[in-house]
C-alpha cells in the first residue's frame, strides 16, 4: 500500500470528561495525522496524552467511558459527538482495523491466552475470520517487520521488555492500519531496544502509515516528527478536580524546541532525562544536586574540579578493593556542582556492605557446581557510606534489579554476606531489614497496593513511629515528592509519573538508612525528575546512603558520587 491510498485522521476535542468527574480531562485540542507523517504529542505526566490516544483509537467509547464533545474524522467518515445519548457509537474492532493503538503497558495489549508469539500476532486476525493461509502470510510479514521472526514459537510471557513492546506493536500493525498511535513506546527500553522500535516506526512511515507518538520526552524519536503538539495538564490528577489538559502550542520541532510551553508542560529535554541542557532546565529543576551544564566529556575532566568535600578517604574499605569499585569517581566530581557533599565520616559502620556476594537463578540457585556463566552476580563487593550516592548502570538484563533485591533480603546470596549498618542480614526477615533499607521497585505498580494515596504512604509506619506520628510522616513524605493534595486519590488513578513518585514517598516515609532505587527516572516527566532529585539530595544530606540503578549513564554520571557498571555479574567502576 502506498502513502497516497492511506487516509488521514483528525480529532477535535472540545471537551472530554470521565464519568463521575466535574472537570474535563482534555479540552481545546485538535490533532491531525497525515499519511506517512509522524506527529509527536508532547506533555508531562497526567497531561491527558493517553486519554487523547485512546479517544483517537476508539479505546474509550464516547458515552461509555465519559462525555465527549467534538469530532473524529477518518477519511470520508465524520463523526460528531455532542455528549448526547444519540451520539454515534464506534465499533472498536472496526475502528482499530484502521486506527491502531499500543498502550504504555505493552503487556496489556496481549490476549494472555495464546501460547506463542505467532498465535498472539494472529489473535486479531482470527477474530476477523481471516482465512488461515492469509493469516500465516500476515504473521510472517509482520514478524519480519518487527524483528520477531526468530521468536515466533516463544511463549509471550518469556519475552524481554523490548521484545514485548515489538510484539504489542506487531499485534497493532498486523491489520495494516492507516494510523498507528504509540503511547511512550521507548519507556524503560535500553539503547538497543529503543533503536529497534525507532527503526520499525521509520519503516511503517515509509509504507504510508501515519504515526502518532505520545511522549513526555522530546527525545531523538520526537525530533524526527513532522509536527509537535504540546499538551499541558497543569498539575492534573484524576479525582482531584484540577484543570484538565489542553494544547498550549503546536508547530514544527524547530519552532517549539526550547519553548517556554514545552518547559511548562514538564517535557523532558531532547538529550534524555539526566541531561538537562541550559535551556531545558525548568525553574523547579534547579537546586542542589541538579546539574545545569550538559555532560562534560572525559577529556575535559580536570583533577582540580574534584571537590575534596565529596571524597571520603575512609570510604575506601579493604573489603571493597577486590573489585576496585571504591572511591569517588573523578568524572562524577568533574560534573559540578554535583550532589551535596558527603557528611564528615563518623565512627560507625558503613550503611551497606556486600562481601563476595554471588547469586544465580534456577531450580536451585544454592546448589553447588552451577556453571559460572549462569550466575547473575559473582563475587560482588560493595561498600556504601552514609550520605553517599552511588549509581549502578548496565544494559537490560544485566542483573541490576537482582543486585538491589539482595540489599533487603528479598533475594538471598548463594555465597557471601550482606551487611546493613554493620550487621549481617542473613536469616533476618525482609520485614525487619526494611526498617533500615528502603527499596523502590522498578515497576511502581508492583509496589502500590493500597486504596488511597495516604494509606499507601502510611502502610507499615505505625510499627516504626507509633500511631501518633505515622500519618504525619506519611503526609510529609507525600509533600516531599510534590503529591500533597492527592491523599484521597486511588493510586491507580495517578499518572505513571506520579505513581513512581508515590512509590518513592512510601520508601522515604520510612526514613531508612539506605535508599535503594531501581530505575527511578523511568516514566518521570521534568517535574517528577526535579522532585526525585531534590528528594534524593535531601535524603543524602541527612546521612542516608543512596544506591540507584539506572540504564541512563548520563543521569548516573551527573547525580552520583560514584558510578559502577554491573557487567558479567561483577561490579566495576566507570
Amino acid at each position: 500500500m502506498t502513502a497516497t491510498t492511506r487516509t488521514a485522521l483528525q480529532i477535535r476535542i472540545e471537551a472530554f470528561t470521565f464519568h463521575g468527574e466535574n472537570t474535563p480531562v482534555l479540552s481545546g485540542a485538535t490533532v491531525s495525522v497525515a499519511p506517512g507523517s509522524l506527529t509527536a504529542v508532547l506533555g508531562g505526566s497526567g497531561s491527558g496524552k493517553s486519554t487523547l490516544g485512546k479517544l483517537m483509537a476508539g479505546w474509550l467509547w464516547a458515552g461509555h467511558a465519559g462525555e465527549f464533545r467534538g469530532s473524529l474524522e477518518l477519511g470520508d467518515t465524520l463523526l460528531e459527538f455532542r455528549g448526547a445519548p444519540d451520539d454515534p457509537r464506534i465499533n472498536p474492532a472496526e475502528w482499530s482495523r484502521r486506527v491502531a493503538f499500543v498502550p504504555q503497558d505493552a503487556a496489556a495489549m496481549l490476549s494472555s491466552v495464546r501460547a506463542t508469539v505467532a498465535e498472539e500476532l494472529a489473535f486479531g486476525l482470527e477474530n476477523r475470520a481471516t482465512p488461515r493461509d492469509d493469516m500465516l502470510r500476515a504473521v510472517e510479514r509482520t514478524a519480519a517487520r518487527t524483528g520477531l521472526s526468530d521468536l515466533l514459537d516463544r511463549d509471550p510471557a518469556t519475552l524481554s521488555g523490548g521484545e514485548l513492546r515489538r510484539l504489542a506493536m506487531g499485534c497493532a500493525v498486523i491489520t495494516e492500519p492507516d494510523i498507528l498511535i504509540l503511547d511512550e513506546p521507548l519507556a524503560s527500553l535500553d539503547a538497543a531496544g529503543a533503536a529497534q522500535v525507532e527503526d520499525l516506526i521509520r519503516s511503517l512511515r515509509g509504507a504510508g502509515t501515519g504515526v502518532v507518538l505520545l511522549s513526555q520526552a522530546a527525545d531523538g524519536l520526537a525530533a524526527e516528527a513532522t509536527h509537535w503538539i504540546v499538551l499541558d495538564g497543569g498539575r492534573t490528577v484524576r479525582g482531584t478536580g484540577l484543570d484538565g489538559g489542553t494544547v498550549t502550542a503546536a508547530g514544527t520541532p524547530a519552532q517549539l524546541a526550547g519553548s517556554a510551553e514545552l518547559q511548562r508542560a514538564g517535557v523532558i529535554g531532547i538529550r534524555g532525562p539526566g541531561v538537562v541542557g541550559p535551556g531545558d532546565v525548568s525553574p523547579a529543576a534547579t537546586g542542589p544536586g541538579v546539574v545545569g551544564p550538559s555532560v562534560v566529556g572525559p577529556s575535559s575532566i580536570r583533577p582540580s574540579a574534584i571537590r575534596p568535600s565529596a571524597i571520603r578517604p575512609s570510604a575506601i574499605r579493604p573489603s571493597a578493593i577486590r573489585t576496585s569499585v571504591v572511591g569517588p569517581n573523578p568524572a562524577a566530581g568533574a560534573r559540578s556542582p554535583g550532589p551535596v557533599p558527603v557528611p564528615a565520616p563518623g565512627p560507625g559502620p558503613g550503611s551497606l556492605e556486600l562481601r563476595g556476594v554471588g547469586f544465580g537463578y534456577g531450580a536451585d540457585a544454592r546448589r553447588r557446581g552451577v556453571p559460572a556463566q549462569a550466575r547473575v552476580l559473582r563475587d560482588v563487593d560493595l561498600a556504601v557510606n552514609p550520605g553517599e550516592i552511588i549509581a549502578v548502570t548496565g544494559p537490560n538484563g544485566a542483573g541490576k534489579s537482582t543486585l538491589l533485591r539482595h540489599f533487603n533480603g528479598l533475594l538471598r546470596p548463594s555465597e557471601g554476606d550482606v551487611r546493613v549498618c554493620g550487621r549481617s542480614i542473613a536469616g533476618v526477615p525482609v520485614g525487619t531489614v526494611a526498617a533500615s533499607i528502603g527499596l523502590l521497585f522498578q515497576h511502581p505498580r508492583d509496589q502500590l497496593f493500597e486504596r488511597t494515596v495516604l494509606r499507601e504512604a502510611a502502610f507499615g509506619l505505625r510499627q516504626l513511629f507509633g500511631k501518633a506520628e505515622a500519618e504525619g510522616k506519611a503526609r510529609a513524605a507525600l509533600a516531599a515528592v510534590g503529591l500533597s493534595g492527592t491523599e484521597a486519590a486511588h493510586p491507580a488513578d495517578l499518572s505513571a509519573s506520579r505513581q513512581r513518585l508515590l512509590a518513592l514517598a512510601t520508601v522515604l516515609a520510612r526514613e531508612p538508612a539506605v535508599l535503594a532505587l531501581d530505575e527511578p527516572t523511568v516514566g518521570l516527566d521534568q517535574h517528577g525528575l526535579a522532585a526525585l532529585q531534590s528528594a534524593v539530595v535531601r535524603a543524602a544530606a541527612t546521612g542516608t546512603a543512596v544506591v540507584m540503578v539506572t540504564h541512563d549513564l548520563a543521569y548516573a554520571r551527573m547525580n552520583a558520587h560514584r558510578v559502577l557498571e554491573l557487567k558479567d555479574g561483577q561490579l566495576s567502576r566507570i
Partner: protein
Amino acid sequence: MTLGHRDYDMRPPLHPFTALTAAACAAVVTTAAAYSPLSVAVALAAVFLAVRRGVAGRVLPAAAVILAPLCLSLLVLHGLFFPEGQTVLAQWGPARVTAEGLGFALELGTRNTACVLVFLLFSFTVSVPDLVSALAGRRIPPQFGFVLASTLTLVPAVAVRLDRIRQAQETRGMVVRRGLLSRLGALRLQMVPLVLALIDDAGSRAQALDARGFGSRGPRTSYREVADPPAQRRFRAAALLFAAAAVVWRIVASWPVGVPS
C-alpha cells in the same frame, strides 16, 4: 499450568476432545457400574498415567485436597449413620457403625476418587491452547474458550501477583515468619490488593481485547491447527456409544420390576 508446548510432544498427539471424551466416558462408566473393584482399577489407571506423563506430583496433591474431606464426610455420613445397615460392628448412642454402611461409603468413595482422578489427569495434561483452538473450530463461542483458558491460567497468575504484593509489603516492614499463623495473617493483608489488582488488570485488558475484535460476532478462524486423525474420531464415537450403553444398562438393571409405570 503453562500454556507452552509440553515436553512429551514426541508422542503421537492426542486431540483434546479425545482426551476429554476418554475422561468423561471413564467417569460415566465408573458411575454407572457402581462396582468398587472397577472404580479402584480406573483410579489406579489414572495414577499410572499421571506418573507416566510426569504430572503425578501435581495431580495427587490436588486430588488429596479434593478427596480427603469428601471421603471423610462419606465415612462419617454413611459409616456411622446408615439406616439400612444390619450388621452392627460398633455402636455409640445413635451412631452405629455397620458393615453395609462402611461398604456403601467405600463404594461411593472409590467412585468419586476415580472420577476426580481422571478429570484432574485430563486438566493437567491437556494442552490448553489446543483445547481452546479445538473448541473454536466447533463453533463454540470463543468467549467460552477464553474463559476456560483464563480460568486455567488464573492460578499461576494469582500466585505471581500475590508474590509481588507480598514482596512490596515485606519491603515496607511486614514481617512474614515461617509459622502457618504468620502466613495466614499476611495472606489476609494481601487479599484486598490482590482482588483490586486483578480487576484493574481485567479492565485494561478488556479495551485491548475489544480493539482486537474479540467482542465481535460472526465467524472466526484459527491460526493453530490441531490434528484430529480419523482413528481418534472413531475412538471417540465408540467411547461415547459404550458410555451411553452403560447408562442404559444401569437404568434397565435398576428399574423396579413389576411396578406399573
